């Protein structure tokens, strides 16, 4: 068992706790960077999806996991990002390198406006309000006529950065990886500084957050802004991965999938968003492998995928409410203390609910 000795305050502030941790994360990064050397296009594309979803997930994590505002409308922000990016590229000929941040910013501003409006709503009210935003956005984009391409959608131009076409799996992979790492770092930075702490304070107790000087309405809107920026970024990248976007692409189902993603990953942690993205993106692939082993009648019956997805989620929430990351921590602990591990270390003690209707 490794015991951590803290020698300086910086240790708690720096990106990595100690050298061992830094080593592992850098090793992961190197492997990820080298992946195009040993993985074929199929896996690279899958991983690209993981990265993009993780970016959107990090945004949602900031909003839901850290500031405690449940949003069912994340896909609407993804849609706005995707549309803004595509329209900027194809209609206004904005260079890619500008168009993507601009799209993210536009989405962020929409998020800010919505956050400002929804700032006074709590819990379920906010969830349903954001859900309705998702529904209404889909219809509005659909009704946008030629500008948005209506329900029939828009083709997405290819990626071109300073004349270099990003048109192969390994190139998009690296691009997505870079932005993914950037998004992680930003989230991490947010969490170790003042604003991030303000978000967590608001989540746990608005009254005392206020008594310590947090302008609750402002920071709630800020959380919406950041979350929308991330979603917009993911939207821009997704647009390229989709080649063609329609309003239906970013429907309510997508919002729910994003929310489920961060829960399965482990709500309230950065790892959670990433693990969740792996889960959501790779599950269909895994299911299709599993299906091959099953008797034909089951595998070919309609509904199998949905049922499996629903059941796996149910199982997760029932048996591991802390999500994949929670499980990971336990496994990690197991090896850390190896011979001394006791099952009961992680047994859940009975807990009881108290009303959340008091704000």
């Amino acid at each position, binding site marked *: 068992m490794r015991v951590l000795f803290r020698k300086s*305050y*910086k240790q*708690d*502030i720096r990106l990595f706790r100690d050298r061992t941790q830094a080593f592992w994360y850098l090793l992961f990064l190197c492997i990820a960077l080298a992946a195009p050397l040993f993985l074929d296009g199929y896996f690279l594309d899958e991983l690209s999806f993981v990265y993009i979803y993780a970016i959107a997930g990090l945004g949602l994590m900031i909003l839901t996991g850290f500031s405690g505002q449940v949003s069912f409308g994340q896909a609407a922000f993804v849609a706005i990002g995707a549309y803004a990016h595509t329209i900027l590229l194809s209609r206004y000929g904005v260079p890619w390198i500008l168009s993507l941040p601009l799209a993210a910013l536009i989405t962020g501003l929409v998020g800010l406006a919505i956050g400002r409006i929804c700032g006074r709503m709590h819990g379920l009210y906010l969830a349903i309000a954001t859900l309705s935003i998702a529904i209404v956005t889909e219809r509005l984009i659909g009704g946008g006529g030629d500008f948005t391409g209506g329900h029939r959608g828009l083709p997405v131009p290819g990626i071109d950065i300073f004349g270099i076409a990003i048109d192969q799996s390994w190139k998009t992979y690296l691009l997505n990886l870079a932005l993914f790492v950037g998004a992680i770092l*930003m989230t991490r*930075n*947010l969490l*170790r*500084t*003042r*604003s*991030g*702490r*303000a978000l*967590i*304070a608001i*989540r*746990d*107790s608005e*009254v*005392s*957050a*206020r*008594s*310590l*000087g*947090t*302008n*609750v309405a402002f920071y709630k809107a*800020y959380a919406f802004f950041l979350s929308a920026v991330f979603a917009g970024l993911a939207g821009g990248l997704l647009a390229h991965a989709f080649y063609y976007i329609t309003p239906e692409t970013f429907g309510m189902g997508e919002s729910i999938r994003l929310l489920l993603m961060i829960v399965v990953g482990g709500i*309230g942690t950065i790892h959670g968003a990433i693990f969740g993205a792996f889960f959501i993106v790779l599950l269909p692939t895994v299911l299709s492998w599993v299906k091959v082993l099953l008797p034909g009648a089951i595998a070919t019956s309609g509904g199998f995928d949905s049922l499996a997805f629903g059941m796996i989620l149910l199982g997760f929430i029932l048996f591991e409410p802390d999500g994949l990351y929670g499980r990971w921590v336990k496994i990690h602990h197991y090896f850390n203390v190896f011979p001394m591990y006791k099952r009961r270390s992680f047994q859940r003690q009975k807990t009881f609910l108290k009303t959340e209707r008091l704000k």
Partner: protein
Amino acid sequence: MSWLEVENVSLAFGGLKAVDNLSFSVEPGKVFTIIGPNGAGKSTVFNLICRIYDPLEGDIRFGGESLLGARPHEVINHGIARTFQNIELFEHASLLDNLLIGRFRHGRFSPLSELFFLPGQLRQELEHRRKAEEVIEFLDLEGYRHARVADLPYGVRKKTEMARALVASPEILLLDEPSSGLTTEETDDTAFVIEDIREDLGITVVMIEHDMKLVNKVSDKVLAINEGRFLATGSASEVQDDPDVQAAYLGGEAA
């Protein structure tokens, strides 16, 4: 140094007059204690000062400036920090993070610097951390630094809340029943802590308290209220000798 002045303040909840034309003032560098029976309106007075409620009438001034124009989150910028009777901590964060949030007023909103962790950030963070550590040491909380607040025993949580208010380096500290739920021994410690807060840190303390031993030990001035109205004021012993206070608050076997 500032004075906290509460002047003819009233507040009603429905038909119930929770605070009724109440006035008092707190001198800088003193420990001012409010006592009174349950439901007298003591916590409500704190809530009025912290702008959680709007008084129906009257004025609340700090350092000569009216607080009534401030929004709840701006109160701390005047140098007023508080604790809560029922403990309002950030349950899912560590004790250290709770204290760092307490440093909130000592910083500016600078999104770019934060998101990209520009060089100045590290310096600021270290500064906050040093301040938090001072308070941790001051209140003997070393052992719990990285523990999740939700898992701490009641007494430690009470202390944590006091610590969180202290890291904000306020000029005046409002403590709502600092000793409730503590043992005799811990209450004694609290007395020393309050003395240190006043003497070493130079912070004025306004305290609501039921433990008369503690009140006697630390208060410079005591205010007794009942049903939102003024009852008596003066030194601890003067107030306790007041027959009205005896009847309404202390009861037969008073200290």
